[in-house]
């Protein structure tokens, strides 16, 4: 076990996988930093410090700094993947799926199917998502609902450094395209990371708190929020299952349904906007498949259906908070 930050877990895993498999290659904007400047390559690593040192170690052939051309970045990842490489493309902000969506949605996600299963596309697209930095409407979004809605993509959202390691390793070794969402506000979070060739299979949620009264399904930054609420309520004798989905595609339906069978109460806590979202997805799943277990209407705690506002007061009012989560738990317990 080693203690490290979430961002270090990203960097170390990429480093180890690049050492292990020479087909692993990385590309993105400023991931080297300093190309074509007096300071030279690595003058500044990636802006999230998740690629520092990779260029020096593996060279420009495998650590490719690109112009600002997100469609070409993801497109190039596609071409690399179809040519037997294992590209890790970085979108500096998840919001930039806007300028590259075709290569994600209509190419990457569809190759295997539309080519009749005769090709694989082992590409990882890493992206920094989420609010909390007052980065305003175009740099703060949570895009996992969008990406989960697209067939052919796997969607991974680690909430701890250990999960970064285990899930990113699985992502890099997976033969399907994987969207790997790293929350900006978690990069500095610290935690223990298992040693060795640690991997976490996709589709296996993590029960981060156990209780009998309410099932809270969540992912990413929101996991910590839910844990705090669960811990507080536990002291009062209210037990919450907190399910950290880890991957939203594939989805661990069993973990969710099993928990709701016991608790009869479901709250989904998620940072993406509510309409046609992960929250509705989980509520719909449970309503369909665990209807008889439900003792109260399922509920969600999400931002409102608006862009992410800039000002501190607005952004914090926008985001789910421990207060709102706690209120939702109390409300669902008080139902009828």
């Amino acid at each position, binding site marked *: 076990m080693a203690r490290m930050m979430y961002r270090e877990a990203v960097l170390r895993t990429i480093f180890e996988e690049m050492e292990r498999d020479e087909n692993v*290659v990385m*590309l993105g904007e400023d991931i080297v930093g300093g190309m074509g400047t007096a300071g030279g390559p690595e003058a500044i690593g990636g802006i999230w410090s998740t690629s520092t040192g990779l260029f020096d170690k593996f060279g420009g*052939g*495998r650590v*490719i700094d*690109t*112009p600002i*051309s997100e*469609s*070409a*970045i*993801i*497109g*190039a*990842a*596609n*071409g*690399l*993947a*179809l*040519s*037997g*490489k294992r*590209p890790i493309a970085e979108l500096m902000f998840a919001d930039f799926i806007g300028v590259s969506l*075709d*290569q994600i949605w*209509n*190419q990457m996600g569809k*190759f*295997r*199917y*539309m*080519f*009749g*299963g*005769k*090709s694989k596309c082992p590409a990882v697209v890493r992206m920094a998502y989420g609010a909390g930095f007052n980065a305003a409407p175009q740099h703060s979004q949570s895009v996992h609902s969008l990406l989960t809605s697209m*067939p*052919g993509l*796997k969607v991974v959202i680690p909430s701890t450094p250990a999960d970064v390691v285990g899930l990113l390793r699985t992502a890099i070794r997976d033969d*399907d395209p994987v969207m790997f969402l790293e929350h900006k506000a978690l990069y500095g979070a610290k935690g223990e990371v298992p040693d060795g060739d640690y991997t976490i299979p996709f589709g296996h949620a993590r029960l981060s708190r156990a209780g009998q009264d309410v099932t809270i399904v969540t992912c990413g930054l929101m996991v910590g929020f839910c844990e705090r609420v669960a811990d507080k309520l536990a002291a009062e004798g209210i037990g919450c299952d907190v399910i950290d989905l880890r991957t939203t*595609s*594939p*989805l661990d*339906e069993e973990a969710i349904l099993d928990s709701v069978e016991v608790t009869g109460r479901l709250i989904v806590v998620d940072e993406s906007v509510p309409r046609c979202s992960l929250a509705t997805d989980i509520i719909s*799943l449970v309503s369909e498949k665990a209807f008889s277990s439900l003792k109260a209407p399922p509920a969600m705690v999400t931002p409102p259906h608006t862009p992410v506002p800039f000002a501190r007061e607005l952004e914090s009012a926008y985001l789910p908070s421990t207060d709102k989560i706690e209120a939702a738990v109390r409300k669902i317990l008080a139902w009828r």
Partner: protein
Amino acid sequence: MQLSRDALLRSYRQMKVIREFEERLHTEIMTGEIAGFTHLYCGQEAVAVGVCEHLDNVDKIISTHRGHGHCIAKGCDVPTMMKEIWGSAEGTCKGKGGSMHIADIDQGMLGANGIVGGGAPIAVGAAMAAKMDGQGKVSIAFSGDGACNQGTTFEAMNMAVVTKVPAIFVFENNHYSEHTGVDYAVGTSGDIASRAEAFGMKVWRGNGVDFFSVYETMREVLDYVRAGNGPAAVEFDTERFFGHFEGDPQRYRGEGELDRIREQRDCLKIFREKVTQAKLLDGADLDAVDAEVMSLIEASVEGARAAARPTAEDVLTDVYISY
């Protein structure tokens, strides 16, 4: 450099296979048996074949919505392609892709592509892979005169130049994107090559209805790119004999245009004339190829008609699905 007799025969045969594949599809589509949108490559055969005759399996190409010619020229199996177009479970994509999505990764054919401009960025990635492998492989993006206006194509050209990868952008200027003229849609009065050149690449131009022009131009291009000089672009002036898609009334064509291009700009005729006049091959050689090709196409159609159909369960395979 003089092409061998074998090479000449092979090139002619490839062009002829494409031609007859397309002519036959044109007829079959009218019967309603074939589903979906089909874009025929007929008229442009010299480009696909003149380019791909220089390549082998480790070289990659990526194509467009008008992909049959590139697929055939790059070595996709013709009867299996026909099955795909018929939507058979035995087709190249098990009936899941159809005309616009035929791919054969083992042959270095990274797919026809329904998104105009979708291919060029992917070709850059394949070129990055080729550069990593360091064996002089290349990657080629075929794009039309319409696709050359898509942002993705521009981004791809700049990125190829910046990363100095062995990517080749082959622009097939057939003068139309759907029903719009190239002079209108390409701001440089239809000149694609000089715009590509301004991205910092060496460019070539060739006659896209003359196999020998394409072939010799591509020899230079490939020598240059395989030698590690970075990317290049080529514009070939060519002709599409049919409508944009099957069913297009083609009212945008000039008076007599279709007759004229069939008469004067038919790459097969031009090839036949050149090789027979130069006495490299005689008419009988070519006639024999023609006959063999006709029976290949006939057999392919029969095979496609008889081939297994996909079933409802097949919808759920070849993709991860959750619920």
